[in-house]
């Protein structure tokens, strides 16, 4: 199940690339439409499977958040050698990784688009006994349990939800559960990123849904208030859940992202000279 994708313009001098990161237990598949939209807007797009994801489901039990960061840094460095401007974007865990890249390469990242940033697991979908989660995460119990990928699957639009549900049953779009070991690493990564948010200075676009079922707007608000970027924008969606790239306002998210990249790219495309 090779879900990685690269959308590269052939026979052109594209100097701007967008590096995408998927969410926890997800796959680059969830970024395909978004990536294609950005590609159609003239940017080269790269999305790879994060360590611990993909064919070998068992790897999610052994992967560390440092592996995700190392992988992201390596990808960014590779793209930075080839392109003048590299934007980083991600959804859920991918958004936290994108922030991590922005912190490390604050002078090199052209901009960060952070979608449904998951710094806190405090969405409305979590059961009332989720206050016990820290106990499970910090003890052996994290090896025994996986939080089920259940309704509403992060999607408000019922039609899209039923399609995603079918794809999840087939195993085509990622894992059916969130293993606690993966959540444990996400929590550790979020904590680390929160600690260094004040060092983040790149331009950033934060998109978060008011009704996010997995992580409340507190995450986006925390990022927005703690970063030192002069150029920052926070957009709160009113008619979506966690998976903003597939939900009711997906077109707006796509347009907004493309607009952000267009505004922040240093590359001046040649304009036909008028006589």
């Amino acid at each position, binding site marked *: 199940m090779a879900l990685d994708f690269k959308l590269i313009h052939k026979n052109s001098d594209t100097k701007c690339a967008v590096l995408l990161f998927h969410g926890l237990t997800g796959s680059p598949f969830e970024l395909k439409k978004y990536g294609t939209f950005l590609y159609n807007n003239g940017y080269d797009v790269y999305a790879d499977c994060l360590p611990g994801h993909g064919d070998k489901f068992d790897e999610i039990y052994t992967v560390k958040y440092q592996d995700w960061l190392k992988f992201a840094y390596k990808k960014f460095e590779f793209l930075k050698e080839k392109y003048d401007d590299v934007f980083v974007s991600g959804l859920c865990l991918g958004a936290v990784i994108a922030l991590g890249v922005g912190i490390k390469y604050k002078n090199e990242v052209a901009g960060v688009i952070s979608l449904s940033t998951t710094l806190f697991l405090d969405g409305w979908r979590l059961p009332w006994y989720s206050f*016990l989660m820290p106990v499970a995460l910090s003890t*052996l119990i*994290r090896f025994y349990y996986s939080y089920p990928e259940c309704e509403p699957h992060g999607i408000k639009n019922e039609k899209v939800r039923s399609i995603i549900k079918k794809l999840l049953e087939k195993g085509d779009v990622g894992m059916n559960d969130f293993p606690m070991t993966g959540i444990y690493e996400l929590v550790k990564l979020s904590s680390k990123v929160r600690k260094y948010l004040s060092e983040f200075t790149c331009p950033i676009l934060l998109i978060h849904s008011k009704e996010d079922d997995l992580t409340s707007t507190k995450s986006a608000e925390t990022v927005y208030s703690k970063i030192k970027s002069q150029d920052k924008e926070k957009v709160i969606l009113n008619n979506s859940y966690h998976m903003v790239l597939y939900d009711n306002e997906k077109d707006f998210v796509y347009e907004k992202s493309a607009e952000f990249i267009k505004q922040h790219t240093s590359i001046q495309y040649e304009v036909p000279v008028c006589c």
Partner: protein
Amino acid sequence: MLLKIFISLGILFSISLVLYRFFMKKIKNYTTKTRMVALICLMLFLYVLSGILIFIIHPDKFLFLLFALSPFIIGKTAVYKYEKYYTFIQILIIVISAFYASGI
């Protein structure tokens, strides 16, 4: 009274951990599974709490603090590959703690 609660919780936690780890891990009903894990977490939380309370009341009984914190120490050092062995060590420590508490 607190000692009895500590012993009971330790025994209950050990039994439920063994049952869940070796027999019930493959349950397909997620609601049942989630509630069971939540119950195990609650027992563990109360075990830790009672251990800490005993230590506060009897500061000379330093071992209670170690017993209470053992799930977090083991959890921090455990790796997936050797998870079975860590589970065994965890249960052993809780059983020892129950014996130690009953001897006081």
